[in-house]
């Protein structure tokens, strides 16, 4: 009998938490939850894979039934490519982080459809749109997003591509190695299920 009561309580708790997502809106402050941004640039010749990571997100994401929106920012100073001189060149010469310390992703628009009302554990390839302000230049970006339930949270991952020249960033060159103009950006955020 005790087991039955505990089991009932457990299920009721779970249903109540998810229904908050399904029926209502929510907000999450990314500076207080798990989040990450990384980029992948390729150097030529030799196809060096330059992965910059270590930066977290700040800003607020809002969920309204099936739509996720909001504005988030990244502190560019926090990016680390694994090699000190490369970091220095990236931040001082190309991104000019002293003048433009943050990249800002605004007008985020991700339509999840019926994901939260369904039994699906994940959904991939969801169209994603936003405006990216980087190096003092704002441009629309398009990509895809994946969402995956993890307990009572959801992990949101989005990927998009940017062209350095679109943001008036010089193509990085160093000792005969030139970085390709197209850079892949990955943004990841854990969305806790909380009531507004």
């Amino acid at each position, binding site marked *: 009998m005790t087991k039955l009561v505990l089991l009932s309580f457990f299920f009721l708790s779970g249903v109540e938490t998810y229904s908050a997502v399904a029926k209502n809106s929510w907000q999450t402050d990314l500076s207080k939850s798990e989040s990450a941004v990384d980029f*992948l640039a*390729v*150097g*030529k*010749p*030799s*196809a*060096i*894979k*330059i*992965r910059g990571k270590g930066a977290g997100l700040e800003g607020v994401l809002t969920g309204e039934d099936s739509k996720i929106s909001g504005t988030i920012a990244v502190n560019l100073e926090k990016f680390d490519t*694994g*090699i*000190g*001189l*490369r970091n220095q060149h990236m931040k001082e010469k190309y991104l000019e982080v002293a003048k433009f310390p943050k990249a800002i992703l605004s007008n985020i628009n991700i339509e999840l459809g019926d994901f939260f009302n369904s039994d699906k554990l994940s959904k991939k390839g969801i169209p994603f749109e936003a405006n990216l302000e980087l190096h003092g230049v704002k441009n629309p970006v398009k990509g895809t997003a994946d969402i995956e339930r993890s307990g009572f949270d959801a992990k949101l991952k989005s990927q998009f591509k940017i062209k350095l020249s679109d943001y008036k960033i010089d193509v990085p060159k*160093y*000792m*005969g*190695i030139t970085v390709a103009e197209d850079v892949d950006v990955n943004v990841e955020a854990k969305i806790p299920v909380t009531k507004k």
Partner: protein
Amino acid sequence: MKSIYLSLILLCLGQSVFGFPEMIRHGYVNCVACHVSPSGGGLLTPYGRSISREALSSYGKENEEKFLYGAVSLPEWILAGGDLRALQLFRNNSAVEEAKFIPMQADVEAGLVSNKITAVATAGRAPQNSANPVISRRHYMMYKPTDEWSLRAGRFFPVFGLMLPDHAIVTKRNLGWDQGQESYNLEASYLGEVYNLYVTGIFGRPDDANLIREHGFSVNASVSFLDRFKTGLSFYFGENNSQRKYLYGPFAILGFTSKLYLLTETDLTDKRTFTPEVGQHGFVNFQKLGCELFQGFHIFISDEVAQSDFGNAMSRTDSYGLGIQAFPRPHIEILATWQKQRSFAISPQYGDLAYLLLHYYL
């Protein structure tokens, strides 16, 4: 007997021409970011010199990584380098006990480099008993029509498996790629973001009729994934007037993290002598698990097994060991290892091999 062992060791450890594929853990999936040669090793590019200070060595001041520490300023189209190597060796097994200091290599290397065409040559001290006091182990002309494609002709090792510096390992020594075994080749290579391909025609040593070397070809294809992983397959066919040889097998360079990496290679060997007509099937396996404790200081464990003839248990050798590898400053490499080794043809008991290698690259 001692002199035979010493000769073997000199052959095995004599010359190091390859680079450091474990740099894949920093996203370097190909050799040509740091080396002029598509297969790695030898002459460094300006970027490679910079990385030798920034990512390979523990410490280094500005310009310390340059040729002769920047004392000589060369035009952009000339690259220069070289290698000095010496070894302090200790070996103790049922057949021999010895300790010896061995000066191994003193080579200079120069390259004339343009966007499309490159010429590279080494010159250095010849091994003992050579007819000429100075030899060129490696020299080639290379044409690069694009960033990815290159065509190379000259004397160098064909690409097969892991292109590691250590010639003592079974995937080098036992397969025929010891010191002085470079052949004249024609190589086409494609080094892309994901796929690498080397196809090499091997023409032996037409410059020296006394050297009976194999003619044939090799193919090495690999794929990179997840920034720090690479795996591939190699195939080699070689023939001379006494034997025909096929070698084939997989290899992998796995950068689990920016600090932890595994190098592994397994090859099957198929050798047939013509008179008498005898076939031998065997294998070699090499593995090295390394960890960079702090920048420029690595510890590793290694394991090697080889059996040249599956039908003959006495043809088996194996070894395992550990070591450290340090790059305290640009130009300097220190390698110390201790291994337990045995050859069933000599004794089933393990013996000890330890050596300290000092390498100074110009």
